[in-house]
Structure formats: C-alpha cells, structure tokens
C-alpha cells in the first residue's frame, strides 16, 4: 500500500461523500457533511493563501462578507439562490483584490494583522449600519423562493469539490512554483522574474471568493446572520486549525484536517456537552496536542507511518542548527 493509492482512494471517497450524501445520506450524515464541506472550502482557501506565504488571520472577513452579500442581494433585490452565490463570489474576489493592493509588500505577521484588522473593521461596519445589515440583532434571510435544503446542501458539496479542483489546478500549473518561491522569499522571487503583486492579487482574489461562497451558502443553510458570528475570529481560527491539523501547504491536508476538526468538534460537543466548559476545553487541549506531536499534520503522520512500513532505511539526518536561527 503506498501513499498514492491511499490518496487517490481518499480523494474519490471524499468526492463521492460530498456529492452523494445530500442525495442518500441520513439527516445526521447530511448535517456533518455540510459542515465538513463548509470547513473544507475555508481550509483550502486559507491554505491557498498560506501556500503563497500569506498567513491570513482574518478569513472571517471573507466569510462574513459573503454571508452579508448574499442576504442583502436576496432581501433587497429578490436575487435568486444561485445568482446570490455568484454575487458573493464577486464580493469576496473584490475584497481579496483590495487586500492584495493595500497590503502591497507587507509580509508575515504584518499581513496577518492587516487581515485581522479588515475583519474587525467589517464587523464594526455591520454593527454600526443596522438599517443596511440589521445590526447586532441580526437579520433573517427572506427569499422569494427557497431552493430547498437539498439544493443548499448540494451547493456546499459542489463548492467544496470545486475549491479542491481549483487548488489542484493551481498545484499543477506553473503558478505553483511562483507561489512556492514567494513563500520562501518574496524578494528573491522578484529577481527570478516573478512579479509578486500579480500573483498575490490572483491568489487573494481566488481564496477570498471561495471563502465568501462558503459564507453565502451558510446563510442559505442557517437563514440568519449577525455580525458577531459572521465575523467571528473563531471562523478564522478553525479555517487555520484544519489545514495545520491535516498538513499545511499540501492539497489533501486541509481536507483531512477539515474532516478531523469537524469530527473532533462534534465528538467533544456531544460527548461532553452536558458539562459546562468541558467541550471546548477538550478541543483546546487536542489542538495543543496536535501542534506539539503532529507538527506535519495528519498527512505527515500518515506519510511517516507508510514510510516506516515500507521499511525504507532513512539516511542519517544532519543535526539541527543549534544556533536557534
């Protein structure tokens, strides 16, 4: 059994689950799949940015914007379901482009903090313009035609599959190398004839638009939105937990991580929900444990396991640099 076989079969399984569960699954199954798919979209989207060296601490900005774009389009202009999703995609892409432009050459922690600021800024706007957004007491979706739960669930499945396909296409294209170079060193990549801003704008636009899409489908699913939860920092955090738990900078890592995060979250919530504070305590501890003991994520863990099984003798690695740089 090698990594390739495992990975192909997992991909096929994931695809089928995402697209067939809304048709055949039990309500619980549908619900878990929906939330997993939503997290897959966010995680893959976050990982796309991270792959280009852009660590986002404000993915909730895209998620929330997408939700508000969908609800505004629907409630004020009677926009139908699919069209409202398109609107959110565009809104997310515009925000992504804008972010790339204002952040210019900012990198690392400065880029991260700017995204955080954008997300918090949007939350303040949503809170302070109640006539437009419903303000802090929230707003309900009031569509002319509700497309039905099946369609909404299916939309999230398609979104997840589509996002993975985009990530796959990027990993197969020459852009992949550009992003990798940017991640390593933006200055150096410039010398290689790569113009970071162009790629940066492209990746933030793509990543932003799919994250917005997730927000929009969530609104159609839940039917309600409010600023505190649309722009919740925990959305940002879970969209990071998933790729890091699964394996950052990889294709399958965010997906594996999303599945694991959802299942762990549900297990602790349902298993420990009757004890005050226990469910998120255990979730926090699991997170700490994963960062400490699975630094390469689940994907890295599996690869290592398979490696060991194939008994390939590893070459003696060099001692690490003790100079702490």
């Amino acid at each position, binding site marked *: 059994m090698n990594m390739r076989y495992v990975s192909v079969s997992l991909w096929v399984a994931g695809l089928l689950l995402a697209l067939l569960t809304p048709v055949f699954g039990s309500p619980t199954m549908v619900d878990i799949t929906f939330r997993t798919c939503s997290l897959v979209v966010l995680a893959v989207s976050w990982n796309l940015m991270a792959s280009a060296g852009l660590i986002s601490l404000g993915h909730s900005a895209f998620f929330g914007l997408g939700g508000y774009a969908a609800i505004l389009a629907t409630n004020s202009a009677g926009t139908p379901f699919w069209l409202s999703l398109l609107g959110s995609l565009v809104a997310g892409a515009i925000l992504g482009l804008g972010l790339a432009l204002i952040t210019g050459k900012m990198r690392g922690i400065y880029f991260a903090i700017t995204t955080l600021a*954008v997300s*918090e800024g949007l939350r303040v706007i949503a809170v*302070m313009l109640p006539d437009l957004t419903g303000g802090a007491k929230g707003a309900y979706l009031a569509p002319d035609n509700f497309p039905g739960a099946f369609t909404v669930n299916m939309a999230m499945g398609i979104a997840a599959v589509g996002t993975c396909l985009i990530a796959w296409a990027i990993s197969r294209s020459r852009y992949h190398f550009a992003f990798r170079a940017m991640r390593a060193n933006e200055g150096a990549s410039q010398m290689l004839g790569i113009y970071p801003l162009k790629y940066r704008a492209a990746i933030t636009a793509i990543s932003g638009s799919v994250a917005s899409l997730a927000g929009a489908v969530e609104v159609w699913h839940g039917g309600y939105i409010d600023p505190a939860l649309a722009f919740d920092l925990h959305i940002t955090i879970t969209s990071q937990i998933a790729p890091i738990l699964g394996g950052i900078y990889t294709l399958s890592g965010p997906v594996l991580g999303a599945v694991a995060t959802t299942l762990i979250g549900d297990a602790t919530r349902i298993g420990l929900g009757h004890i005050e*504070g226990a469910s*998120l305590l255990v979730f926090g501890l699991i997170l700490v444990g994963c960062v400490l003991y699975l630094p390469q994520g689940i994907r890295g863990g599996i690869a290592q396991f398979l490696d060991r099984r194939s008994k390939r003798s590893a070459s003696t690695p060099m001692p690490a640099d003790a100079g*702490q740089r």
Partner: protein
Amino acid sequence: MDLIPQAFSDAVLLAGLYTLMAVGLSLGFGVVRIINFAHGEMIMLGAYGAFWLFTLFGVDPLISLPALIVVGYVVGWLLFKGFIAKVLDAPHINQILLTFGLGLAIQHIAIILWTGNARSATPVYATSSFLIGDVLVVHGRLVAFAVAVVMVAALIAWLRWSETGLATRAVAENRAAATLMGVDVRRIYALSFGVSCALGVATGVVVSFILTITPFMGFPMLVKAIAIVILGGLGSIPGTVIGALVLAFAETFASYYLPEGSGWAEGIAFVLIIGILILRPRGILGEAVET
C-alpha cells in the same frame, strides 16, 4: 461646558490601561518572537485572582498585586517550559495555534472552576471620584494609570540597567550574538515569557475593579493589545506606549465628537492600523525591544 479637558484626561488615563494591556505582549513578541494568543487569558486569570482574594478574604487588589505578579510569572514560566519551548523552531502559524489552543483551554478551565458568571471587585476607590475644575477623575482609573506607569517604568528600568535585562535585550536584538556572550537564550526566553505573563496578570488585577470579569474577557483585550503593539511597532516598548496613546486618543475623541462615535471607535482603531501599516510597514517605531 468645554469637554476638551475632560476628553484629554479620559484619553490619558485610558492610554495607561492600554499600555499595560499591551506591554507584556510586546515584550513576549520582541524577545521570544511569539505572539502569545493566550495573553488575554493571563489578564483574565489576574482579574479572577484579584477578585477572589478581594471577595473571599477582603484583600485589596492593590495589596494582592505583588503576589499575583509572582504567580503570573511562575505560570508563564511553566507554560513556556511545558509548551512554548517545544515549538520555538516551528512556523509562526503553529505557534499562534498552540497559544490559541492554550487560551481556549484556560478559558474553559475558568468556566469549570468559577462558572461563566460575570463578576467585578468592588473596592471603595473603584467608584469614587474627584473634580479638578470641570474635569472628573475616577479614583479607580487613576489607580490603574499609576500601576501602569509604575509597571512600565520598572520594566524599562529593568531592561536598561539590570544585567539580566540587558541580556534580554541582547537576545531580542540578536540571539546568536547573545549566545556568544554567554547568554543562555532559552533561560532568557523562559524569563521574558514569565515577565510577559506577569504583566498580563498585573493588567488583570487592575481591571478587576474597573471592568467586568468573565472567562471570555481576555480575547477582546488581546485583539486590542495586538492592535496597539502593531501600531507602535512589534517589540518596541516606547512604541507600545505611543500605540496606546494613539489608540486611546483616537477612541476617546471619536466618542466625544463624532455622532455614534463610541460605536465607531473600534473601527477607527483598525483603520489606523491599516493606515499605519501601509505608510510604515513596521509600525510607528520599528522592531526589536527598545527602551
């Protein structure tokens, strides 16, 4: 009535609180190069510590402050040895997630121990005040300001004049060179992380009688502290003071002079951050621990 003197006084007092809130985070980042997402939880623990000592034993928060600072130092030191030390060479994002996970766990331990009920300590000075001309000054806030000034001054003096403080700055500026001077970098890390947490706890003690204490109080304060640290320049202590002043003045004056200004104030802070990062991508005063 002219509100400008009042606004000015409010802003200065608030800036003191903000400085204290952010200075520990700034030190932690400057030296250990980790943004401690559990820093807010240190504030929360400090607040609960002061609250319980006050409520159960009648110990005034200002009296319990020194003891709690020591406890905060020990907790920080243990967190460093137990967790942070293991991810020093990991990517930033892993470190962020680790500290976030720790924060989440600490929050919910607090819920289990003390429930989610909102609390606040009630020493007399918390709600008494005096007037200078037209300007009203609340004793509690003045006390908080004084504690902030003393703590920040002590920190600066320590970094500037003590042997260990100097070594800490050396590590912040160049860890390899510091090692060559015989400085045990890991020990300095543990120490600074401890001091950083102790400052968080001190903040908690001070807000225990001004603000509402809940297990969740830390996270919004962390976001604010990050904003301040970024405004001033990561790791720069004078920068943190400037960042706190900028934020406090912007918020206070917006609240006084804009319609619905106190609602927009927080948004103003984030606009400021983005603006400053565009103009000066490394904050008002650059990086590294300066005093």
